[in-house]
């Protein structure tokens, strides 16, 4: 089995299944915070998938997307946290 096949037939499916598992938490909640955490993890795992996919397709360009994903995933979390606190203040 080559590196290529290993990544494609083992790593990528395992990462995908991880995403599915995380998605279950997203659906379950129960609080918004839980979903935000799940979302954050979902994105982080996405970076992993992208990295593996870039090897698989031999396209380093895809790593740039991983870079942006890493940057912005943070923003979503921050925004939700910002919201949670604001809501707390307003209520």
């Amino acid at each position, binding site marked *: 089995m080559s590196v290529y096949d290993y990544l494609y037939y083992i790593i990528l499916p395992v990462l995908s299944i991880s995403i599915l598992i995380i998605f279950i938490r997203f659906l379950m909640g129960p609080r918004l915070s839980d979903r935000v955490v799940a979302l954050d993890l979902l994105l982080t795992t996405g970076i992993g998938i992208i990295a593996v996919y870039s090897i698989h397709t031999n396209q380093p*360009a895809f790593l740039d997307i991983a870079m942006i994903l890493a*940057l*912005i995933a*943070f923003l979503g979390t*921050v*925004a939700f*946290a*910002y919201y949670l606190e604001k809501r707390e203040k307003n209520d």
Partner: protein
Amino acid sequence: MKTIIFKTASTYLLPLLVLFSIFILLRGHYLPGGGFVGGLIASIAFVIHSFANGIDQTKSIIKFHPGFLMPIGLAIALMSGAAPLFIGESFMTGLWFEEPFSVIGMVGSALFFDTGVYLVVIGVTLTIIFTISETL
């Protein structure tokens, strides 16, 4: 949101992200990226900063209303598009310097155009988000 951790982190993230956004802008002609995504990243940098430090502080860093980036950016894009009209060629005809510049590569009207896009996107995003934050 007054947390030291976030505040400190945002102070360091801001220049880093802006730098990164320029990088994304400049390489757009060759690799994924370009003015639009670049502009978004730059504005995200400022947004993060404003979340951590409050709008006023972020505004005082930028020193002018980000909305003014919109006409500036539009003007740059318009100029780079309209310049060929003055030599009797069609709008948006590419004009290029003969030799590539180091780092940036070929410099031509497309790059100016993309820079216009970059500025507009920053102006737009920040105007929207700052306005919303201010009128919450």
